[in-house]
């Protein structure tokens, strides 16, 4: 056989692989009219007298499964706990988790399945900026509540453009502003630099840093792509530029890679990481026996710390993890997944005896939800992002704990202000009632 035949064969295989999900989504498109309108007298899709069905798309297989697959299991465990305690307004919650492998084409087909075939009441915590962006318009058109997207991208906080979509994670820009403020207070006069992923995460984070540090506040801005797991060129450049305080807008794997690579070059700057890539449990797992390099590692979070021995939320979630999640490793993802479940239950309880799609959106935008964060929920009639502030965490002695007071930050170029209200207290064993 000659080369051209092989090349043609490979091209054909590639085209076929691309076409399959496309065709699947086209065929699903033709049945769009099956979705129900909101606010009807008829019960909303996915709601019966005894049950409410919600669905999500998460990467359970593929490269992105590492680090994310445990989130939906934690949410499911929280719902199991809730259901065993009577559910919400007498209804149990069924959570359908579909695997999209972090591939936007697959996300499109599984979300259509969820909405048109499984007839879910709402989408909850769809994961990832790129995958979820692919279904925004579809969810809008079908008026499906798109609650608490697992991303900090401002794309999911546009009440005018996408009134049905609500983000969960702390806004990347807000987070960057809080971390930059912390750096100015604790490491004054040092040379600051940034290592960022070459996508929304990096861009939004950089924009946030600039509003606090000024246009020339970063001595060196390096980027990496996830397809090349080697950051030695970038780290060497930062070292050469004399960077002393380095911000990281990276996923956990690349935070670990950056810290490990720097150590190999005999370079130990202060790292300040976005919460996306700053979970000590996950980053230290990548570093293995070199986990001690993370001593002093600064990051941010907005949910109860999974290390805490005293926090009531953490204690409850740890118990639910034992009882309903087969004692899976308890980490930041577990707390995250259960917090998402709790916020949804809270919204559902506020949506009244017979929840409708419009009803739950009204509950979310009412400003009455409390969440379980260290900063208050920012959800309101004009803001579709759940968390808009963070508290700084520092790793000391292998434990990542909160330090100082939290900051809240307005979207865009707005102010960063300390928040002294204290974390949201646990009520009624984490079982919301209306």
């Amino acid at each position, binding site marked *: 056989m000659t080369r051209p035949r092989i090349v043609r064969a490979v091209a054909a295989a590639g085209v076929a692989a691309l076409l399959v999900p496309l065709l699947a989504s086209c065929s699903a498109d033709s049945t769009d009219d099956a979705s129900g309108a909101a606010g009807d007298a008829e019960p909303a899709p996915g709601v019966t007298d005894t049950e409410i069905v919600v669905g999500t798309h998460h990467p359970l297989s593929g490269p992105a499964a*590492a680090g994310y697959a445990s989130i939906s299991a934690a949410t499911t465990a929280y719902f199991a706990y809730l259901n065993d305690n009577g559910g919400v307004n007498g209804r149990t919650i069924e959570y359908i988790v579909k695997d999209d492998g972090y591939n936007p084409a697959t996300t499109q087909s599984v979300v259509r399945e969820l909405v048109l075939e499984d007839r879910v009441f709402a989408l909850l915590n769809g994961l990832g900026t790129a995958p979820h962006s692919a279904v925004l318009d579809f969810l809008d058109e079908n008026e499906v509540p798109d609650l608490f997207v697992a991303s900090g991208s401002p794309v999911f906080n546009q009440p005018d453009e996408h009134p049905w979509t609500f983000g969960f994670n702390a806004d990347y820009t807000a987070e960057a502003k809080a971390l930059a403020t912390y750096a100015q207070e604790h490491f004054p006069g040092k040379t600051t630099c940034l290592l960022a992923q070459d996508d929304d995460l990096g861009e939004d984070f950089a924009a946030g840093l600039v509003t606090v540090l000024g246009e020339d506040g970063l001595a060196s801005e*390096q980027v990496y*792509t996830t*397809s090349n797991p080697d950051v030695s060129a970038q780290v060497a450049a930062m070292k050469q530029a004399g960077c002393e305080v380095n911000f990281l807008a990276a996923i956990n794997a690349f935070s670990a890679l950056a810290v490990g690579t720097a150590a190999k070059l005999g370079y130990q700057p202060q790292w300040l990481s976005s919460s996306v890539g700053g979970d000590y449990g996950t980053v230290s*797992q990548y570093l293995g026996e070199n986990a001690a390099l993370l001593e002093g590692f600064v990051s941010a979070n907005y949910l109860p710390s999974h290390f805490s021995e005293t926090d009531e939320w953490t204690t409850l979630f740890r118990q639910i993890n034992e009882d309903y999640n087969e004692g899976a490793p308890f980490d930041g993802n577990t707390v995250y997944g259960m917090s998402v479940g709790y916020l949804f239950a809270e919204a559902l309880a506020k949506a009244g005896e017979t929840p409708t799609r419009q009803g739950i959106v009204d509950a979310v935008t009412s400003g009455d939800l409390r969440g379980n964060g260290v900063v208050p929920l920012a959800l309101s009639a004009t803001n579709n992002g759940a968390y808009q502030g963070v508290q700084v965490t520092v790793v000391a002695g292998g434990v990542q704990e909160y330090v100082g007071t939290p900051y809240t930050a307005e979207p865009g170029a707005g102010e960063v202000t300390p928040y002294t209200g204290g974390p949201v207290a646990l009520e009624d064993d984490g079982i919301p009632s209306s």
Partner: protein
Amino acid sequence: MDHFLHLLSSGLARGAVFAVFALALVLIWRAARIVNFAQGAMAAATTYVAFAVTAATGNYWLGLAAAVLAGALLGLVVERGVMRHVARQSPLNSVIVALGVVMVLQAVLGIAFGNDYTPMRVPFSMEPLWVGGVPLLSPYDLYVIGAVAMLLLALGLLFTRTAVGLRMRAAAFAPETSRLLGVPVSRMLTLGWTLSAAVGAFAAVLVIPTELGLNPHATDTLFVYAFTVAIVGGLDSPVGAAVGGLVVGVLLSLVTGYLGSTLAPIAVLVLLVVVLLVRPAGIFSARQVRQA
């Protein structure tokens, strides 16, 4: 200049690793005239064997040997069990079936070992040696480069100086004629798969510790770069794989260092396109008087 030297040496170290993996692709091409798209996933599977054996015995070298043996065995199983039954009809079949093997292997690995990344231990330090204030290659990089060089030499000798090597090449190029001349073509094919999978397994054990760690998908991007390397160097040429690996490794490193990371994969693509336009069979391909 310091920056350049650092980029050059880190590129060479990564390139060496691309080279070994590309070599496994070249081997199977020489033996069976197909591109083995399952190479990456097969190598990831055997690296789990290395990890388990090293964890159980505390000995890196036993783990490495176990991975190579497991690779040979897996190559045998995939060839005898799957590829043998599909390869003849059309080249597309073996590509599709290999992709199927990838999916099965990655799913089974995910179910058995989970999807998290596991760090692997290595017997040599990964901290670079400093020469005149510039961090150059680490002892581990030197070990990888040395191992690749020896492997290349051994395979070169096998194919050019031994009767088995000659029979393998003959069976691949002209199966009918070889069969008439008494070459056990089907056995040669199996031997090719076994050898290639063993080399792939060896390469993965060398590479995975330098990246994010062990994961069912740990070899995905590696496979893509190695495939490019094999095409650039010439699918038929072990020397091409070695040189192509170093070229791609250094190119990635220099482009990342001077132009930015986003452009690095594009630079590799441009290289691929240029080579395919100027010398479609690869830089180091042998001239063919007539096509088989």
